[in-house]
């Protein structure tokens, strides 16, 4: 689990972490956010931003565009992308996945779920282009 469990500056499983250049690296939690919001902000500097930036600049170029999000493997980033696309005025947001849980959550967030059965290889390869 190193360095996640805490060596060097500490990590996400550390009780205390050291933050170099803290004035630039930390951002204050807005006073209007409640405790539940504040806890969920733990992903904002990472996965939430990844989902946002996957759609935001392109919806600026193509306002109101329909969006297809394909999810296979890690599920949080594409789900954050669903939220961001809808918040930024996308037209139809389709969400393709082979995960029932992910599809249900995407539909709850406002996307149209598309059940997709990605055919998975029966053997391991030294090189792969999908995230597992």
């Amino acid at each position: 689990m190193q360095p996640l469990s805490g060596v060097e500056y500490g990590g996400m499983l550390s009780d205390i972490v050291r933050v170099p250049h803290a004035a630039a690296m930390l951002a204050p939690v807005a006073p209007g956010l409640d405790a539940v919001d504040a806890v969920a902000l733990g992903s904002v500097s990472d996965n939430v931003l990844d989902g946002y930036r996957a759609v935001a600049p392109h919806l600026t170029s193509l306002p109101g565009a329909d969006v297809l999000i394909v999810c296979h493997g890690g599920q949080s980033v594409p789900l954050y992308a669903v939220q961001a696309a809808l918040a930024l005025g996308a037209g139809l947001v389709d969400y393709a996945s082979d995960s029932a849980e992910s599809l249900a959550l995407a539909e709850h967030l406002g996307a149209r779920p598309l059940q997709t059965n990605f055919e998975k290889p029966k053997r391991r390869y030294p090189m792969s282009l999908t995230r597992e």
Partner: protein
Amino acid sequence: MTPAVCGTPSERRSRRHLAERELLPWRRRSDAARSALHPRIRFFIGRTHAAALLPEVMALIEQRRLSPEAVTTRVVEWNAAAAAYGEPAIKTRRPPNLSMVNASSTEAADLP
């Protein structure tokens, strides 16, 4: 392809790797030139500049237009985080703690 490639050494290496295999024009081209090369497919790749985008995302969260907590599928106590980390969940977080909202900068660093 129109990758959002920045200027770090590793990113320059990646760009050169693709260019050598004729998968990517080495020199930056205008949008029109890229579209002429690949009129139907545009492929974007790059790393997120967290500090640059954070204000945009935080504004959406404050306006309640973005709700990261809605993607949470599992809540575990902080002292169970190490065991829970390896278990399946779309997103795991700790229970809310009211003292965290106005925590000092030292305490805020405890956020997972």
